[in-house]
């Protein structure tokens, strides 16, 4: 598939599902890149190879540290007017920042969040028609 075709496919997918544009998919340099930003980079011809590789391996990469970073960043960007409530053993209403902390501290919940984030990326990949 040519870069132009990838761009067209991404444009169509993100037009239909704009929520996915804010999902972090890779790290380029020291910067976390979302799907929407990846599309912009392809349009501008920046880091084309890295972006294409990230799209190709979305949810399939075994780089746990990178996945952890992406997952933490995903939750850190959760809007402040949202909380995540848990029907678990204790009363909890977690902010995005607190969810990111769980990941960075490597708690039981944090590990599950990373694992689920990988699975989420696979769903994103499927929704993009990958």
């Amino acid at each position, binding site marked *: 598939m040519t870069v132009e075709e990838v761009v067209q496919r991404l444009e169509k997918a993100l037009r*239909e*599902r*704009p*929520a*996915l544009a*804010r*999902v972090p998919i890779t790290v380029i340099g020291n910067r976390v890149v979302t799907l929407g930003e990846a599309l912009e980079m392809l349009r501008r011809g920046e880091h084309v190879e890295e972006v294409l590789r990230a799209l190709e391996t979305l949810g399939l990469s075994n780089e746990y540290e990178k996945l952890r970073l992406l997952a933490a960043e*995903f*939750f850190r960007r*959760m*809007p*402040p*007017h*949202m*909380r*995540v*409530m*848990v*029907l*678990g*053993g*204790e*009363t*909890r*209403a977690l*902010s*995005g920042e607190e969810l990111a902390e769980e990941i960075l501290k490597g708690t039981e*919940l944090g590990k*599950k969040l990373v694992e*689920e*984030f990988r*699975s*989420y990326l696979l*769903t994103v990949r499927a*929704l993009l028609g990958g």
Partner: protein
Amino acid sequence: MPRENVAVCTAPDFDPATCYGKHAFAHLCDPQYGDGCGGWEIHALEGDRAVRERVLRALALHDPKLFFGVGHGSEDTFTGQNLERLFWVCNCRELAGRVVYLLSCLTGAKLGPDMVAKGALAYVGYDREYMFVAMFPPMCRDPITEDRYAYAFFDPPLVFLATLIKGGTVGDAFKAMIDRYNYWMDLWSRSGEEGAEHVVFFLKWDRDHAVVYGDQSAVAGRYVPTARPAIPGAALVGAVMGYALTNTIEGAVVGFMLGAALDRVRRSRA
């Protein structure tokens, strides 16, 4: 022998998460779900009544075919008000012969299979944390009418229960619930609203960790349609009364909302 068309439900409300669940369950007989729950007896143990002694008494007294509840849970325990233990591994024989649905974290890991091993007809629940997105600040809200994020997380469980109420099998109900999670995931993924991606994430989480054990062909009862005055009728009476009492449009609007709400409560308690 558990009685068909009878349900016992526990709904503690001691913290925001359980309180959301209690409010959600109160919608079970709304038109879009159980539609009046015709032919059903539903015994709800809410708030301080959601404790083991009361639950066991209700099970013995009403002998329901369907038991459902919201509450905090762990792999081997399901709790009620103030985290009082209701059922735990090796202590759930009271659920033998019944269909069980627990809207709770983790009970699908050990407690659910144990319930089925001890004779429960079927168990549906979750083998990981049940997590849902809610509006800030955390407080007791009705997820169906007051929290547009949480709505998507409590609607699928209601669809599950409504399918059972309407005579569907456990398998039918489970499938309807999964379809509903998919519906909400699809809807939120199409939203441009900031945070929609997080709603999709947790909907997927809950969908992927919903589990069913036991007899999927089991039914809990059958639905008997009942003629009830439509909600607009009650709302209209409320509006007329509101206007007559206050002589203002605002009074009519308040009366309209009050009439609709009272009718909804009446229906859900039916």
